[in-house]
């Protein structure tokens, strides 16, 4: 009686496979740990590099968002002949009528006027300070505030009174406001009313000596043309307003108007990746590669050591596929272990560093998911050859070879 048998095919259950694949890890803990460490270091460095750069970017963007990204500036450009194209005095009012514009403030550069600590300073030592006429609600629009003293008001704007930008105060050597403090502006004394905090978005304010429009006209021969218009638009209308600004500010000569969004320059700066990132990512990749070689090495040794186990399993009815799956999943498990430790280490170091810097901790999904995926793939690739060798081993050789 001979029958060609087709016996029922069965596969190892997942729970059995999990148990089998962890045999090597459980019985050789130190070896498995050291082997996984290689992958862990690689994954940790990659996760940390990506996490740190994302966290610092998030920190900077957060700072920018606090200042507001809806600030737009309109400044006078150049005319066809190369001279300065003055903005019309009606420009601020016109801009204020654009739908979505919330606040409009201006400054006007007072040409020919310089500020000095006192009349005895040589006229060449201008400290690169600009004397500017400023409108009365400028500060909230340019996202700064008064550090000391007070800002211009309707009364002081008529009088020879100045407010100093943060850098201007420093350059003039004024750190405190006391009654009677005065500086020499355009050939006459101006009393100092206040000092401003640094304006991150508009650094031009920092190096300015601000006076009122009426005072500038009365004492400094100012022509009352604004040179820069600062405006805040509704967040959802920023782009629309941006498109209309040049034509609205100077309908006769729109090309003589410069429109810019100060926050976008800072965002671009935040986006710029450090060149060092590439270097550290490369080092992480090398560590991963070395880790992969380690896994392959350990798995080959493991297959050699466990010949009799392989033979016994074949005698107990394991197919070649069962043996292959067992060793392959052991390698994947090693990789996964390294990946998990690596992601945890990388995330922890990112969190610690971000905490000390006061940033939010940001671990990009591609960093941790990529780290996991890379370690699993590395385990599989590194374990493939040893697993195939284990499966090829003949049971008689494995059991009877001395």
């Amino acid at each position, binding site marked *: 009686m001979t029958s060609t*048998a087709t016996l029922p*095919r069965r596969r190892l259950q997942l729970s059995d496979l999990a148990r089998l694949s962890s045999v090597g890890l459980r019985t050789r803990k130190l070896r498995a740990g050291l082997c996984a460490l290689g992958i862990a270091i690689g994954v940790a460095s990659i996760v940390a590099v990506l996490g740190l750069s994302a966290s610092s970017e998030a920190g900077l963007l957060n700072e920018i968002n606090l200042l507001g990204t809806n600030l737009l500036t309109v400044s006078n450009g150049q005319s066809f002949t190369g001279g300065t194209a003055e903005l019309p005095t009606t420009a601020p009012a016109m801009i204020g009528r654009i739908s979505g514009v919330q606040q409009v403030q201006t400054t006007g550069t007072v040409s020919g006027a310089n500020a000095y600590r006192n009349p005895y300073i040589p006229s060449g030592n201008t400290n690169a300070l600009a004397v500017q006429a400023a409108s009365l609600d400028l500060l909230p629009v340019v996202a700064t505030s008064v550090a000391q003293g007070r800002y211009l008001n309707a009364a002081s704007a008529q009088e020879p009174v100045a407010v100093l930008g943060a850098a201007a105060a420093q350059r003039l050597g004024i750190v405190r406001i006391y009654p009677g403090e005065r500086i020499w502006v355009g050939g006459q004394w101006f009393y100092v009313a206040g000092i401003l905090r640094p304006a991150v978005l508009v650094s031009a304010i920092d190096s300015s000596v601000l006076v009122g429009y009426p005072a500038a006209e009365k004492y400094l021969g100012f022509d009352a043309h604004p040179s820069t218009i600062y405006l805040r638009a509704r967040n959802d209308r920023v782009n629309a307003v941006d498109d209309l600004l040049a034509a609205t500010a100077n309908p006769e000569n729109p090309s003589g108007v410069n429109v810019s969004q100060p926050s976008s320059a800072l965002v671009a700066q935040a986006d710029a990746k450090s060149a060092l990132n590439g270097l550290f990512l490369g080092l992480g990749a090398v560590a991963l590669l070395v880790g992969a070689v380690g896994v392959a090495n350990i798995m080959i040794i493991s297959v050699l050591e466990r010949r009799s186990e392989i033979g016994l399993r074949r005698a*107990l009815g394991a*197919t070649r596929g069962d043996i292959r799956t067992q060793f392959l999943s052991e390698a994947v498990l090693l990789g996964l272990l390294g990946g998990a430790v690596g992601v945890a280490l990388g995330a922890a170091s990112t969190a610690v560093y971000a905490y000390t810097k006061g940033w939010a901790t940001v671990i990009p999904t591609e960093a941790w998911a990529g780290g996991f995926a890379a370690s699993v793939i590395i385990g599989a690739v590194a374990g493939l050859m040893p697993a195939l060798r284990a499966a090829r081993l003949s049971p008689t050789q494995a059991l009877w070879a001395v």
Partner: protein
Amino acid sequence: MTYTPVLDVDDVTKSYPGEPPVRALRGVTLAIGQGELVGIVGPSGSGKTTLLQLMGTLDRPTSGRVRITGLDVATMADDDVAYLRATRIGFIFQQFFLNEHATVLDNVADGLLYAGIPLRQRRQRAIDALELVGLGERRGARPTQLSGGQRQRVAIARALVGQPAIVLADEPTGNLDQATGQSILALIDQLHQAGSTIVVITHDHAIAERMTRKVEILDGHIVADTGPAAGTDLRLRPLEAS
């Protein structure tokens, strides 16, 4: 009912490549019936281990046929042969081959790992098998905590746990002292009495004499066979659905 052997080796030869080729088996024909206890004896190099490997489907013959419970191994795919081993053949080795990192119970339960039986059932049947070999109390121990004889009992329990059609033992007492070896042989005898079909490979004629049938092998030939013992029912009983 016709005589259908559990194990049927029909004019089998086995050569290993070499210069000249090594002819380990040179035409062996042997049929073993249900419930037999067979001792295959021969000096080293006689081909008895090769015969065990072929009977156990761990290797395929160069020519001839091997049938296990009527199934011709030559016509079967590797994975089917593996399933045959998982369900119908039990092995006992000289070196025991136990997993030192698992308990005695799990070592025995692993005998059913590749038969597609859930863990809970495997353990339940392992408990029964351990009772059978007299080690029910030691199921939680590690093999390293056991004596040599106890380890071989664990290995025997592992071979029996799937209630295979045939159990192949390769020098089962080879690593044991005289007294322990005797107790293992007594256990084998007892299992035979209970109905198991067992083939013992040995170089020791004294051991082979204790079996109900003795087959002598020399230089790849069977040179003597006492034949099935009188009164042995050699008909193949229907196998339990596996």
